[in-house]
């Protein structure tokens, strides 16, 4: 009996540092690479609170279980049509890497994933690269729907209906959504300014590279006021003075006090652009929200006009007997 107690104590003393070591390895941010119908990027972070590890993907809470070096977590997402789905991840942690498989049980599809520690971003001397040209979106990120909402944001999401989407009225959906829209963008670049012409909604962004500050007083707009600089070969864009909008079609709100940082990197072969977008909006989120965008260089593509007319949408509502309610709701949202 005594021997058994000693063995148990010995086991505990051995297991404790091992377990602590496992937890220590896990905590922090990891860059997630997912292959599920397309390559998708995300950031998974693990935080310890009251002795328990909590997991967040792209700033949104997610279920998480760990047994030894085995991990499981679920990440909700919406597909292109707005259907709420979930990916179930399982895998192993092995030193400073994780990997495993994932399944979307509802769609019956599966994929693979891997993660590596997401190191602190270091500042290096500016080394601008040429990112001019026409770029077409090739994939998005994890598109996690449920985020770490403040109470007011949670209420706003609950109240949201698809009819609140400004795009239906030909009104720009704002920087965050538009940066991931499926139509091409054209980048013009000189030392003083990077200009992005989006096919969607005819939007234009002027990113001032001349060292100026974002003015204290300037009209808020859908795409905001942007300044940029190079950190090594990464274009870092800071944007604020945004009009209230949404993160995506699930209606997660973006306030007019939000600040957005985009870190855009050109691939070594010059054919792909990758952007990590971080939304800082404490009015709505308890932690930053992250979105990834990726584009392929498509010089053969010709930009088209975004010919938009809200009439057919309104006519459709009229036929359904919903036009009056819709107009009243939009009045209230103004």
């Amino acid at each position, binding site marked *: 009996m005594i021997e058994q107690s000693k063995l148990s104590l010995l086991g505990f003393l051995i297991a404790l540092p091992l377990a602590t070591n496992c937890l220590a390895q896990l905590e922090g941010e990891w860059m997630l690479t997912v292959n599920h119908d397309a390559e998708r990027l995300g950031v998974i972070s693990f935080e310890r609170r009251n002795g328990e590890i909590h997991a967040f993907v792209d700033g949104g809470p997610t279920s998480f279980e760990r047994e030894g070096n085995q991990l499981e977590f679920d990440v909700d997402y919406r*597909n*292109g049509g*707005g259907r709420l789905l979930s990916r179930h991840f399982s895998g192993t942690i092995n030193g400073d890497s994780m990997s495993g498989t994932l399944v979307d049980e509802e769609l019956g599809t599966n994929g693979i994933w891997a993660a590596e520690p997401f190191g602190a971003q270091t500042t290096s001397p500016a080394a601008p690269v040429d990112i001019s040209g026409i770029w077409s979106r090739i994939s998005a990120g994890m598109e996690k729907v449920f985020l770490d909402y403040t109470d007011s944001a949670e209420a706003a999401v609950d109240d949201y209906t698809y009819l609140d989407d400004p795009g*239906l009225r030909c009104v720009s959906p704002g920087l965050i959504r538009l940066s991931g829209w499926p139509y091409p963008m054209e980048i013009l670049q000189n030392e003083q300014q990077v200009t992005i012409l989006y096919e969607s909604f005819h939007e234009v962004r002027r990113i001032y590279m001349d060292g100026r500050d974002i003015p204290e007083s300037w009209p808020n707009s859908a795409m905001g006021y942007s300044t940029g600089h190079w950190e090594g070969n990464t274009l870092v864009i800071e944007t604020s003075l945004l009009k209230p909008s949404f993160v995506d079609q699930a209606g997660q709100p973006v306030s007019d006090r939000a600040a957005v940082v985009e870190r855009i990197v050109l691939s070594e072969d010059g054919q792909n652009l990758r952007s990590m977008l971080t939304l800082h909006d404490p009015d709505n989120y308890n932690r930053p929200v992250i979105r990834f965008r990726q584009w392929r260089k498509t010089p053969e593509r010709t930009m088209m006009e975004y010919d938009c007319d809200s009439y*057919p949408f309104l006519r459709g509502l009229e036929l359904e007997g919903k036009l009056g309610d819709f107009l009243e709701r939009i009045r209230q949202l103004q």
Partner: protein
Amino acid sequence: MRIFIHCLAMIGISTFATNVAAHHSFAAEFSYELFGSREGEVVEVHFVNPHAQVFFAVKNEDGEEQIWNAQTFPPQTLLRRGWNRDSIKVGDRIIIEGNLGLENSNKLWIVTITLEDGTIIRPRVEHEAGPFP
């Protein structure tokens, strides 16, 4: 002809249902599972963003005329797939097959449009995989 159309539509359904390229919440307006087809006369064609729309007059079982609202991808997508502004005109008799609107609304998300001469217009699924924002 109807059976043929239905078969064509069904071939695309499994991928179509998961890749509907609406920028807006398809799931809030249309059924992923229920499909139907309606025959009628085109009364309005709008080849515009955010969605191209065709309104067409359909006679129901009681002989009453109802206007149906059929939606599909925006012009950028359709033009790149060979469907142009003149493909469908007011007055054309057409059969549209698609995902049915929810709440018994007279709406369809277009899978195929069959013209009087038998030509089938078929908005294809997005090649670019993944959710729209």
